[in-house]
């Protein structure tokens, strides 16, 4: 379930540079590879750490600002680490017509953050996306990799609670190291 590397302290700068260096080294020095390189960085780090721009720029022989210019043009790239449970709310046409904005507001209220932000404990982040291709199930919310269709405002709390329970259970299990049989996922 954890999408981000871990709950461990954030990596130090040399560590980040080493990771990035490893990724960049896999690619040729061709300008056309800029976007794939950035995608590879984001696939591994879940966002583009600030060190990415100069490093990739040096690799391709272009200015860091040029790298940033391209990265910021595309919606896919993030410049801040997302939460461990990234929540994305679809606001495509079908979801808009089916009041996806109310779902978004509900998440904002429950999490105490605005769209585009991450909670202080780095657990949740909230983003809006335009159509994930499940329009027949509108309105849609995506938690981690799981798509939840036919969302209702009243389902929001249950969804967050479920994640919380799953996490607490995992913590308990890790602490006790004696696995339990009960299944927390259901409603």
């Amino acid at each position: 379930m954890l999408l981000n590397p871990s709950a461990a302290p954030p990596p130090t700068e040399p560590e980040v540079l080493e990771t990035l260096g490893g990724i960049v080294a896999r690619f040729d020095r061709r300008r056309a590879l800029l976007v794939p390189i950035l995608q590879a960085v984001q696939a591994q780090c879940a966002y583009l750490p600030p060190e990415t721009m100069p490093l990739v720029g040096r690799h391709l022989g272009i200015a860091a600002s040029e790298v940033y210019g391209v990265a910021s043009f595309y919606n896919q790239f993030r410049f801040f680490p997302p939460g461990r449970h990234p929540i994305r709310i679809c606001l495509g046409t079908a979801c808009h017509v089916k009041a996806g904005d109310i779902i978004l507001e509900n998440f904002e209220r429950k999490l105490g953050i605005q769209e585009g932000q991450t909670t202080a404990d780095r657990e949740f982040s909230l983003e809006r996306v335009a159509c994930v291709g499940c329009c027949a199930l509108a309105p849609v919310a995506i938690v981690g990799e799981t798509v939840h269709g036919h969302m209702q405002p009243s389902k929001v709390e249950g969804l967050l609670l479920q994640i919380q329970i799953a996490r607490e259970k995992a913590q308990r299990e890790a602490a006790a190291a004696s696995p339990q049989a009960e299944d927390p996922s259901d409603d």
Partner: protein
Amino acid sequence: MTEAPSIRTLDRLRAAAQAACRARRPEGQPVVRVGLATCGIAAGALDTAEAFRKAIAEAGIDARVETTGCRGHCYAEPLVVIDHPASGFPPILYPEVTPGKAGMLTRFFLGEGDPRFEHMLGATVANELIPSVLEFGRFNREQRLVMDRCGRLDPQSIDDYLADGGYGALARVLAGSPQAVVAAVGAAGLRGRGGAGFPTGRKWELAAAGSAPLRYVVCNADEGDPGAYMDRTLIESNPHQLLEGLAICAYAVGACQAIIYVRAEYPLAVKTLESAIAAAEARGLLGPEVLGTAFAIQVSLFQGSGAFVCGEETALLRSVAGFRGTPTHRPPYPAQKGLGGHPTVIDNVKTLATIPVIVERGAEAFRAVGTPDSPGTAIFSVVGDVVHPGLVEIPMGVTLRELIFDICGGVPGKKRFKAVQIGGPSGGCLPADLLDTPVDFDALSEAGAMMGSGGLVVMDEHTCMVDVARYFLEFTRNESCGKCTFCRLGTCHMLAILERICRGQGRMEDLERLERLARDVRDGSLCGLGRTAPNPVLTTLRYFRDEYEAHVVDQRCPGLSCRPLTAFYIDLEKCARGCDACVGCCPVDAVFTTRTRKKGIDQSLCVKCGECMVACPPEYDAVRRISPAHLAPVIERPPAAEAKT
């Protein structure tokens, strides 16, 4: 006459594929087919498939579970077909199969031969025993030329596609001349399915002309329209048909490099394509010496990074080259001077997936479907306020009314149809009087909408047309690449005006100003994004002007949708004493209990989410929505101590 080498090679491949399929599928063994495209997975199909596997293993039944793509009936996901020949019944389609139902069907149908009729949708084929799904408009009015194999085959299996006759068109084409293919596509009258409807044959001709040393083919799978997913489904359900079309196109125009530009937001589509390309290369259907001939084609994937404008062909090419996706001036068209200055054919997924069909059936047969100016079929994703949303493939020329009402079941509940939005952010909203418009490129453009990519959103009476225009403008403003001033700033101004109107602060002059701005943005923009961005505003102003006026003059939202202009209240005549349904569901605790133990809504807290309206039991039906907001009757909230029950 001996057969051409490509056809001989294919025959060999096909025989091997058929043998592999037979080995995988013992004759007579019951099979459960679960649709596992994104929509199915979102509806829980992975759990359903797992439940079948577990139940079958536990019961020790001899049966297998297979995965397929999407059949387009997204309203009924997870969708399962059970084919149990020994039971004597034809294959049966079951809708909404939860893991619980999966266990039940395993026990009764697979175990005891009782198909549990009450849970089925119908048999997949006409037969004498049981009703078939072909009796429903949603099934029998469609004509599946392109999507025929979607949902029937396992998208992960190249054997399935080969055994079903796949790659036959490629083999046939390779036995003839490239010019013959271009001519056939031209004769078929195929028009690009990516939106503009440019004749595909002409584009190919243009790219094939001259003696360029290098040519490219790019498949446009960017699908940026936020509310359409045909391309994604085609890729996820039948990737090889696209690859076959791509290879044929490359052969026809003399390209040896092909790129598929696919949205990174479609992870399953990306994965499916990657494995399909690898499988096709392993069989010699792509790569060097395709099907034992001298033709070579190298296919690579490029993941688009989520920018709507990158669907535009020149912007797409910039993006592939590693730059910001800003469109450039045309001419020269990419077909003349594209990637790296080389002729580049850019075609939509549906266009390319149609090519094998044209080759197989011939240009004449293709022309026989659809209208003279728009031959063939159109694939729509019909979503929004409609009973049977999903993907529909119909012949061009079918009217919107047939599509929405006869095929997709119309508007749910007792609500009235208000409008249909076609073509996404570049398209327009058509009202009920225009429901008899046929769907083809020209008729839709004439009505002010656009075929676009094929997204069709149905809206009922509780949709506000001003809000819809605002929604699309917000989208285009965010997605404008910023190159042209009119597009960058014009959309901002238009959006500001629309937002003002939606808040009830509009002025009558605003309507004229909107129209003027719309014309300026249209005329002053370089690419299709800016040129079509005003369409949603222009069409709503043209067909729903009264709604704009109601917002401005009366602060009233006729669709009861703009939140600042509406209010919820509880009809005390209807509210049941002691029922707490609405209290529990309110996300902000705005619902309170009155002294008479009925309920009221605290307007200062209410966020107008409408949950209480959904929660209120239908026999009471006490929650009302009203606009303008000040018309809601005031119900006093009793002091806190008293309210406790």
